């Protein structure tokens, strides 16, 4: 239960976090068992109320892009195969209650199949998706792309950049940055951020070939505790992060690279303003990681089915890194 994938925890670089996760479960149970002196385990068969498969809608959408949504079926917990991709149904999108598009099942560049809208979506419009598949209950979900914050700045503290080196030749550039949100709203402070860095390949002759990689980061304990990894590779901030009239997020971006082959040249920040449905859904997912902590009920805004259909606004910033 509670298999956790994705980048959560990768804030502390990938290998140690794998170790942390392994240690977490192993040592957690070991501690509780041993301290409880006599614990033992027994595997039993359980009868949970059986439920017919329901249509699952998963889609996060933003402005100036068409909707791409994943439609599948829910499965019993002991299912070992991937859920089937739903293809022979009628999926429509309405804008502010008026029919907009009939969605088409098409592959995205990496070959995975998603239902696409023809039109790009817009901020402030309430979109409603309705999916009808024979044999299953019709599902419907609605959400809006929120108006995103616009006065966001990223300051790289170039004086404090450090480069650490290990004996295998791997360098780690540690880049302290400060992200400031000047137009922080008084309520609904639902934000997430993603970090990438651009590595320029050392080529001769120079060809300006670059590779973009996701960046990890370090932060103080409070920031780490109020940050949740998401399957989208971005980090969501708990709304309480902004208590105390705080307007900045201070982190230290960790960029590993091999100087013989590449060098970091640019840091890219994606700042997302999330709808409440987006935020609540991922917040409820964040409590599914610990075996003994009470998981929260899954936030579900899909009527008749499961999943999450939610919008977000996106702002992209970049900063050059010193040579």
């Amino acid at each position, binding site marked *: 239960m509670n298999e956790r994938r994705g980048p959560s925890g990768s804030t502390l670089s990938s290998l140690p976090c794998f170790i942390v996760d392994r240690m977490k479960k192993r040592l957690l149970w070991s501690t509780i068992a041993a301290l409880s002196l006599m*614990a033992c385990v027994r595997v039993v068969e359980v009868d949970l109320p059986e439920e017919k498969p329901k249509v699952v809608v998963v889609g996060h959408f933003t402005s100036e892009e068409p909707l791409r949504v994943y439609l599948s079926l829910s499965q019993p917990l002991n299912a070992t195969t991937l859920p089937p991709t739903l293809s022979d149904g009628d999926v429509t999108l309405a804008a502010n209650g008026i029919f907009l598009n009939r969605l088409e099942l098409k592959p995205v560049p990496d070959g995975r199949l998603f239902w696409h809208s023809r039109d790009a979506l817009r901020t402030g419009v309430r979109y409603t998706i309705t999916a009808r598949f024979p044999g299953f209950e019709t599902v419907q979900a609605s959400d809006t792309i929120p108006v995103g914050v616009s006065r966001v700045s990223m300051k790289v503290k170039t004086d404090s950049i450090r480069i650490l080196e290990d004996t295998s030749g791997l360098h780690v550039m540690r880049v302290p940055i400060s992200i400031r949100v000047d137009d922080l709203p008084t309520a609904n402070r639902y934000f997430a951020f993603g970090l990438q860095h651009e590595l320029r390949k050392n080529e001769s002759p120079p060809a300006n070939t670059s590779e973009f990689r996701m960046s990890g980061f370090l932060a103080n304990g409070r920031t780490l505790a109020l940050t949740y990894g998401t399957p989208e590779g971005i980090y969501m901030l708990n709304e309480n992060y902004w208590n105390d009239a705080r307007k900045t997020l201070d982190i230290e971006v960790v960029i590993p690279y091999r100087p013989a082959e590449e060098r970091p040249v640019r840091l890219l920040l994606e700042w997302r303003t999330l709808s409440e449905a987006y935020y609540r859904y991922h917040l409820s997912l964040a409590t599914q990681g610990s075996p003994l902590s009470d998981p929260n009920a899954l936030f579900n805004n899909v009527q008749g089915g499961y999943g999450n259909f939610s919008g977000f606004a996106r702002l992209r910033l970049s900063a050059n890194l010193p040579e």
Partner: protein
Amino acid sequence: MSFTPAATYGQTALQQRLVSAQCQQCDVRSIIQDIAVRYDINLSYHPNFFAECPRVTVNFKEEPLKQVLERLTSCARVRVEWAENQVIIRALRQYTLSGRVLNAETGEWLIGATVRVSTGSSESTVTNEYGFFSLRLYEGRHRLMAYYVGYRPQSLTAEVQGDLSVVFRLEPDATLPEVIVQDIAAAAASSTGYLSSGVRFSTNEMRRTPMLGSEADPMRYAALQPGVLTGVDGLGGLHVRGGNADQNLFLLDDVPVYNPSHALGLLSIFPSASINRAQLWKGDFPARYGGRAASVLDIRLRDGNPYAFGGEASAGLFAGSVMVEGPLFRKLAQSTERQAEGEKGKNSFLISARRTYLNPWLNLLNNRYQGAFFLSGDNVHYRFYDVTMKVNFKPSERDHLHLSLYWGGDLFKNQLNQTFSSSAGLLNDQYALGAEWGNNIAALRWNRTFKSGIFVKNILRYSRFYYQSQQDLLSELFSFTSGKRKLVANYAQRYQTLIEDVSAQTDWEFRPFNELEIHAGGTYAFHTFKPGALSVNFLLPGQSPLLADSLTKALFNRERVPADEFSLYADAAWAMWKGGRLEAGLHISSFEIRNRTFRLLQPRLRLSQRVLAYGQAWAGYHRMGQFLHQVGTFNLNFPFELWVPTTPRALPEEAWQVSAGIGWAPTGWTLRIEGYHKYLSRVLAFVSSTTALLNAGAEDASGWEDRIIAGTGWAKGLELTVEGNLSHTNLSLSYTLSQSMRQFPDLNGGLAFPFRFDRPHVFNFSVRQRLTSWLDISALWVYASGNPITLAGVKFRHQTHEETASPREVFVYGSINSFRLPSYHRLDVSCHLRFEGRKFQHEILVGAYNAYNRANPFFMYLDGSASPETGRLTATQYILLPFLPELRYTFRF
């Protein structure tokens, strides 16, 4: 009305003058006045003296005046003084008779003993937690009786001509029935019964109830009371009438204890050999108690025997203990001297120590449950220990100094060497985990009894709870291809948290008159919180220490939060009308932290009325609150969960409770039914983060204020208790029907859900049979509905089109705590054998915990696997305590 003048004037003294008077249904004052006029007697008195005297019919024929006046004035609180040719009738003066009730053998004071005036009036009272009592009595000779369950009553005659102090020494009587947990009859008989709503239990009662490890444990005993819930086998702390585990105030000799249990809640830290009495209030506690919102478990340590050296040594299967007590600074006193000397100079000490020897058992389990928790190569070591010391010094008859010390803790170590095979080679992990936690407690108390009967208690207190752990991992890969060993990871974490209090308290107890007893006092506490400091160290192969240092600096939480807490309280128990009593109090407290002040106003009210011959009915309203909160990943009252203060973002927890009940206590039986409704207007929960780091179960507390969420809760229930104390048999049956809910805007979609420790039905039945003077058998059967649990019903795949996204399985948790674990039940049995030699006493206890080996799961874990045979979903149940044999030998001298 007619009078016959038949006076004879002679030389006899005035007292012997013969007078006559006849009257039917006359006022006493008129008769006296008439005699004075007719016989020309100079008689002075105040008419109001006889205001409460009923009309009387008299027929005196030439009887001595003294005899006549004594009979006429017997209805009033007056005395007759004789002077030459003059009679003066004066009002009786009231004086305070105070004292203590002690165990004659050990000198231990008896808490809750009844002291009754058996002549003249029917005044009575019960002793407080120091065996102290006081009564307001009119001058004159009074016969007093002191009673205590399991002791022979003692009477004494006191000539009250001023404030007076007496001491009762009751002889224990093993032939009497001993278990009366709720002495309703005594409380009803007492005009201002001090012990109103609390449930008292003694060490003897606890010792005779089968318990885990054959330890007489006040926390496990408290968990058998109706309305008190706990997790499986005690794991998860006590939950009183729907309250959280951190809402219980555990007091050891007046000092708050932050972690009252060893082994994550399986056993309490309170060593039975040192305990005098324990008392549990389930929310309806008097105003002198404060600081917690659900209950009070007030545990009193014994003082030690001031008359003779003694002690006991006890060894069970898992733990052993020793206790030594005796007089201090003086030679052994002879019993005859005791009476003559009074209590002055009776100094005593008591030292007890306990520790476990669990390693053989852990090794056994390690072999048996290989693959479950303890893997091949595990080296597990666990122990707990506690040491208790108490010194008593009586510099004067009215002053008493006590020094109480406790220190104890738990120590856990686990070293694991684990090897995995992979295509790259053999991966060898060396884990090392260590955790240590414990309490340090000290109290210096000065009790003074003023001549007026005022009892004053002044205490300086210190309480500290700490938890610290460390874990290390050294991971190496032995490559198949190169044959070389390569360092994969070297990882270390350190964690610590603590709460420390220094406090002072003064408590004044006095009775302006017998019908009214007042407590008033105040407390100041200086708290220091260190909510959780984590340091982390990663050292990858060849990694610069710079990185590790920096990371350690980034994650080390050096937060240390001071806070001041003040409280003032007053409570009164007033017998306002016949058979009725009003208990009312107010507790005012304030909490200062970071230049912010929070205040709580907590009124407490309880009315009780004697009904029928042996019955009592009561109803109450109590409001409680607290400034301290324990929060953690599990919310299971584990030691690594953090004690944190109230702050602007973690406001004080508050609760109110209304309760009403009726009790009936005919000879040998007690029946009690009580209903309650409790509302928790602010209850807190901690939102865990999967990104936050864990160390031996403890979660980094950084940002704790912003991870606390507030909600509400409510609980209602009906509690039934039946107890029988027959000649050789003690029966106890309790049943609780209850519901406990929580509601948080941020959880469960804002909908209410059952509290994690909600058990609708709880049934406890215990029986003890005395077969011979040296042999008892006991049995305890416990049944409870299963704890609610949150399980996922189905799952789905979360997948989005973004390039950086990776799919994940999402488990659909429909509603929090919507499933229930199987019902909990178990049978414990024990057999006590006692042998008494000339100098020594021996006791052997043989028994079994969970005698029919019921597999009671404390947690169920669904990992999505299915039975290969049936294809049905399987769950892993974690079972805590299977059948456990119990054997304990105790040796007393």
